[in-house]
């Protein structure tokens, strides 16, 4: 177990290194930082002097090492716009995004498993055909369009649900305000969660269906039938457990992707999370904030994938985590 964790940690460090180099390279090529800092009225000599002082004339490697050293100490630079450390700005926005991703994940897991299993068992039924048809629509229509359509229907026409913002939130600890403790908060998070889930849900329904249909063809399912085991037990114990193994792997990657997809959802719903913040930062050429966002999202990717691999090891008895990496 320990050896495995160490191995995973080294992999994670390697990935984070690559992400940081790429992010830093972007920073170097996103316009002139001095223009953002001093404006146009400063003479070229003063600029040159500032450049020297800020270390912008050093080689790329020197600059990167300085950046990495600071980053390791929790300093990813200061946001030009907010005049605050970039990480602080992100951590204030992070809970909103994580709650949104959580809401979407609950919807995806809660619906994709029953729908995927059902459409696999009755592939030719009317309901299955409807689900499969809708899933194509869901995958094809972009998130922002789904979101706008839902706002039009549920907020403008029917006036059931609010169209923007987080509504009443309750602080839990630190910067963390939650939507899940007030009715208003629930109402506000519902539409954005559905919008965010609208791409991944059909994907997972189709994935679970495909894996399930393959598992149902396997020898051990036929054998279970030959033993006289009830169909429900065959579907949900024999087949589903095997079906979920590959789904978990894909799911881990998709949770990271979903954090990235929040940029669209949060923008349409004016959701005060870090996706919305990132888009604003791009508009303002707030380079340190952009870089910090990339690194934080990269970090979330690495962490979720590591956790998912560990869960996979727990679900799949043929992988012995305790002995892995040894």
């Amino acid at each position, binding site marked *: 177990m320990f050896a495995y964790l160490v191995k995973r940690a080294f992999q994670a460090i390697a990935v984070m290194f690559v992400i940081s180099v790429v992010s830093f390279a972007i920073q170097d090529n996103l316009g002139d930082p001095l223009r953002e800092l001093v404006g146009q009225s400063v003479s070229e000599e003063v600029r040159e002097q500032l450049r020297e002082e800020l270390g912008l004339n050093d080689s790329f490697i020197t600059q990167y090492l300085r950046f990495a050293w600071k980053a390791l100490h929790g300093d990813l630079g200061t946001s030009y716009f907010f005049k605050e450390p970039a990480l602080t700005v992100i951590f204030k926005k992070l809970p909103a995004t994580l709650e949104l991703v959580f809401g979407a994940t609950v919807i995806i897991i809660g619906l994709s498993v029953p729908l995927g299993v059902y459409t696999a068992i009755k592939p030719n039924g009317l309901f299955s055909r409807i689900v499969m048809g809708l899933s194509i629509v869901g995958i094809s229509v972009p998130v922002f369009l789904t979101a706008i359509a839902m706002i039009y229907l549920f907020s403008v026409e029917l006036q059931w649900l609010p169209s923007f913002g987080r509504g009443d939130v309750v602080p839990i600890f630190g910067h963390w305000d939650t939507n899940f403790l007030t009715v208003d908060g629930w109402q506000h998070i519902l539409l954005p969660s559905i919008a965010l889930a609208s791409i991944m849900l059909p994907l997972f329904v189709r994935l679970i269906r495909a894996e399930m249909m393959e598992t149902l*063809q*396997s*020898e*051990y399912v*036929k*054998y*279970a*039938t*030959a*033993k*006289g*085991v*009830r*169909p429900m*037990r065959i579907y949900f*114990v*024999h087949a589903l*457990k*095997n079906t979920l*193994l590959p789904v978990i792997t894909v799911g881990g990657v998709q949770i990271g992707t979903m954090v990235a997809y929040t940029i669209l959802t949060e923008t349409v719903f004016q959701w005060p999370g870090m996706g919305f913040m990132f888009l604003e930062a791009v508009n303002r050429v707030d380079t340190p904030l952009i870089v910090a966002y990339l690194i934080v999202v990269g970090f979330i990717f690495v962490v979720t994938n590591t956790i998912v691999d560990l869960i996979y090891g727990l*679900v*799949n*008895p*043929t992988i012995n985590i305790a002995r892995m990496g040894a």
Partner: protein
Amino acid sequence: MALLSVKDLTVKFAMREQSVTALDGISFDLAKGERLGIVGESGAGKSITGFSLMKLISKPGFIDRGQIQFDGRDIAKMDEPALRDIRGNHMAMIFQDPMVTLNPVLTIGEQMVETLRAHRKLSLEEAEQIAIVKLREVYIPSPEERLRQYPHELSGGMRQRIIIAIALLLEPKLIIADEPTTALDVTIQADIMDLMLELCQTNKVSLILITHDLGVVNQMTERTLVMYAGRIIESGRTREIINDPQHPYTQGLINALPQQTLPGQPLKQIPGSMPSLTNIPTGCAFHPRCAYATSRCKTEIPRTLRFGAVEVACHEVERLKAGQGKAGTGQPAANGNASANGDTSAYDEASTYDEASANGSGS
């Protein structure tokens, strides 16, 4: 009374245009406690026979006609809940490859207990106790520990023993074993066969052993069916079939055994290969590969003739017997006015055999 009586069983597979016949009107009986071998090359319909006895043919296969009388009930007409009561309970199956038969994510214990609890009202502890007893019967060391293990932690031979233990859990009347040792090491094959023979004899269980290994059939079974292209072409006492095969195909199978060839000589294989189901030859399906085939073999499906305890479906069998100087007389069974006054009429008389004497051969 026979435990199992199959009559005119025909299994088809629905293809896009027309349906393909996988089993063409096979009939046989099996007495209680009797051990029957089904042999033939790959594609002869052996496995489909085994699976259809449990009505476990996967789509697009279906039972087109015929009866499967098991213990007084017709399995061919049963619905799923009734079949579930039979499967694993009164009739158990041992699959071919133990590496893929057990579910990889469930423990041995879970897979044994679920079988018991699918048919009996038992607590978890009671079920586990029965499982442990059965694991002992198949000589699994420290069975208590095995219950907590997953299939991948056990060897192929061990897994097949566990599958045999699962087959015995509910003390079935019939076990169908579909090439149970094909996927195993040669050294383990004999062990598994000995074990199955021992368990069938002590528990008085009927066995249908599907295999292509005539040596195994000789060791394990009392009666044998030889199948070719979805039909039974020869059946009878195993010893007689091995020692004195009548049908050219059976003769070919036995001549092809390595023991029949001197060291250094090439094996005497049957030329050609089993036809595919979509392209079964007319007349006797074996005629393109048969050294004795006549023009009649190409057009007319041979009827089953009875010679003592052996039944053969071949037009030329009498000529063959005569050639061997054994002077066999084809007795068109159960036919009172059978007057063998000429070759053709003898065969015609014999044609009534199928319906009339299918039962007589069984026990």
